[in-house]
């Protein structure tokens, strides 16, 4: 391979699933799309590891499977060794299977219970006609040996092995075709911690010996930190931040990354760091929020320039705004009487008794009154028109910062008025070292 072209380059990958619908819905065209992966781009170099982290349902596994075309991507391109694999025919794809493999999360369900280890690993060799006869058995023994299993176990069935051993068999199956790239789809999530370490070490050793590149999908940042050369943090089908582990753990960070990092347990009993608790839950990917997808839960949304908010007040107003739009306030459960109702609503939404900005206070009071009358739509439009923020209108793109690439308006010079904790780069002068282009 030439140095300029990465082993794997993913450009604008999209994967939409059609939501459950019956025949009548299909007839009337009332089909809804679940945007599992919504425009993702990254690169993986030969022999390197990209860690992909994010909450459940953010599209991590969909990316892994779309890259291998186990699920057809909706849009975008995947270049493997310079060749766009989304356009390959079935037979060309079959040849490519020798170079790209996958390891699964659940070792119990990823091995056919009716086949012996010999058959499971041998299947790969048979399909591609790699080895046969005596050399086939020798190759299987060699593979078992390589993943740290006893070669005499080849005639056993999967149920006779422990979880960690099963995962090793899964790795041996992936290695059988001698691939250059393996998608590891949460390979250690189903294993207990001591076995996790063994599997991670095995994967690292294999990378050192055979020069395999990994796309390592996980939801545990501490696992990824250990193995990855570069980490991408995903939220709702988009990459929020991407960079080397050092860059990711250092500011400036995406507010979501910040929250994820603060959630890593710390063994030090004297540690007093703040955990950032995110409000609400992940929005539905059927109808994702406009602008920055994280703005409904972000603790650092850029406040409007015309008003003078404190950050916590502004967060409370944002959550009021979000909940009125979703009509997610159960007004009838509060005490009757307007004054009492307003008070309990403020309490419920963590709004202070009066906002520091009198103009904003008026608008919020008006909105609360509308909410009390259950006029959610009017309250929502009032709040949205008055308190405009780029976070809910403009979609952020990945841009270079001092440490890694971040998709957040906080680091966009165009929205400089916002509060930033890290230093936003305006000309990208320091950014050259920040990404791993080669």
């Amino acid at each position: 391979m030439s140095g300029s072209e990465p082993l794997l380059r993913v450009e604008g990958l999209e994967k939409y699933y059609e939501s459950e619908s019956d025949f009548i819905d299909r007839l009337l065209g009332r089909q809804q799309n679940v945007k599992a992966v919504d425009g993702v781009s990254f690169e993986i170099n030969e022999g390197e590891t990209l860690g992909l982290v994010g909450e459940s349902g953010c599209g991590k596994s969909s990316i892994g499977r779309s890259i291998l075309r186990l699920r057809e991507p909706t849009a975008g391109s995947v270049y493997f060794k310079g060749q766009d694999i989304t356009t390959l025919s079935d037979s060309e794809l079959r040849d490519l299977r020798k170079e790209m493999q996958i390891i699964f999360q659940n070792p119990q369900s990823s091995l056919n219970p009716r086949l012996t280890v010999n058959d499971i690993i041998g299947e790969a060799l048979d399909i591609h006609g790699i080895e046969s006869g005596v050399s086939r058995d020798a190759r299987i023994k060699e593979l078992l040996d390589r993943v740290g299993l006893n070669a005499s176990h080849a005639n056993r069935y999967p149920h006779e092995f422990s979880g960690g051993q099963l995962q090793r068999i899964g790795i041996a199956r992936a290695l059988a075709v001698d691939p250059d790239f393996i998608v590891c789809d949460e390979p250690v999530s189903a294993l207990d911690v001591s076995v996790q370490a063994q599997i991670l070490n095995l994967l690292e050793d294999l990378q050192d010996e055979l020069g395999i590149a990994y796309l390592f999908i996980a939801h545990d940042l501490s696992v990824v930190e250990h193995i990855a050369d570069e980490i991408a943090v995903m939220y709702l089908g988009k990459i929020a931040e991407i960079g080397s582990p050092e860059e990711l753990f250092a500011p400036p960070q995406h507010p979501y990354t910040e929250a994820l990092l603060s959630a890593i347990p710390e063994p030090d009993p004297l540690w007093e760091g703040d955990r950032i608790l995110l409000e609400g839950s992940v929005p539905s990917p059927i109808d994702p929020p406009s602008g920055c997808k994280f703005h409904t839960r972000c603790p650092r949304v850029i406040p409007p320039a015309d008003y003078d908010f404190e950050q916590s007040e502004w967060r409370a107003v944002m959550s009021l705004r979000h909940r009125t739009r979703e009509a997610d306030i159960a007004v009838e459960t509060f005490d009757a009487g307007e004054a009492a109702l307003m008070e309990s609503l403020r309490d419920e939404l963590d709004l202070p008794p009066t906002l520091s900005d009198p103009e904003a206070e008026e608008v919020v009071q008006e909105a609360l009154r509308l909410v009390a009358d259950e006029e959610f739509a009017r309250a929502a439009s009032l709040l949205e028109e008055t308190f405009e923020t780029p976070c809910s209108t403009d979609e952020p793109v990945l841009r270079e910062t001092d440490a890694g690439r971040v998709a957040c308006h906080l680091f966009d010079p165009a929205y400089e008025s916002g509060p930033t904790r890290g230093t936003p780069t305006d000309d990208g002068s320091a950014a050259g070292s920040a990404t791993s282009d080669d």
Partner: protein
Amino acid sequence: MSSETSQRTTERGRIRVSGFDVERVESRDPLSSWEPDLQSEAGRGRLEYAWQRFKRNRLALFGAATIVFMVLLAVFSRPISLPNGFPVLAGQTVQPFSLAPADPANQDVLTGYREPTLENLFSGTATGLYLFGADWAGRDILSRVMYGGRWSLSIGFIAVAMALLVGIPLGSIAGYYGGKVDEIIMRLVDLLYAFPFIVLAIAVIAVLGRGYWEMILALVVVGWLPYARIIRGEILSVKENEYVTAAKALGSRDRSIITRHILPNAMAPVIVQATLSIGTTVLVAAALGFIGLGLSPASAEWGVMLNVEQDAIARGRWWAGLFPGLAIFVFVMAINLVGDGVRDAFDPQGDQSDTDTGGLR
């Protein structure tokens, strides 16, 4: 403890947990020397396990023995000769035994009905022992019941086998590919299900005429439906397993994925259903024979025998209908016992009911 570490701080990483230390981890759990407690070199998955459990079910074994007995009686009731046009051993007798006391077609129309009595045993005539009596044409009912098993039993087994041959591929295709193919096949299944079976059978037999293979066809036309439904449902769940995705990722072809990875793991409920429906099929075949849609009235098929002797019981000739009916009853009963045994054998929680009902599930 140094003074530095005893202060409260917001800085992370003062205490490091080194869980990823290769040396330590490997010395703690030597991997390859682990041996399974259950030394099960012979562990052959679910089928083997099911067979072990089936063998312990005495009622099911009794049913199986009954079926084997009836099959043997049918096979050895009369000698079997291959037809002259047969490619090998043409015209030769391949099964020389003749257990039936008389030729089931031997008539004695002048005498007609004979009551089954013990005296018959000793005054045996050329047309039979009449242990079960004789029918309207003076034919030996015992011989006819034994010989008739050839028709009734073979219809049950062959019709079910053919229904499986149709139902499993169609159900597999529907379940595996999904989408439009699935929609078409399953709507066809719904359509045939909605059709009254007897009307369909009458239509098939009216078009093709009466006969052995015509009847089997009429049975297969609707017989494959349950298998297609069951296998489709089973495949929908089995194909979600990651080993199917793994096979795809390795580049397996669809055919080999279905036959090697999916079907073996989806067959258990179909085997249960097929076993149970052999009995139903024999019953339905008898019913078709009874309403006159079965084999020719001269044949010894059990249902036809009942049909011919419809009014005999009313006239006090109880034996003419009792014995063919009893043969159907015993066979269907035995099949149901076996079917229940098979179902229990495939049910992993079946034999734990008395010992392990509580605890974590």
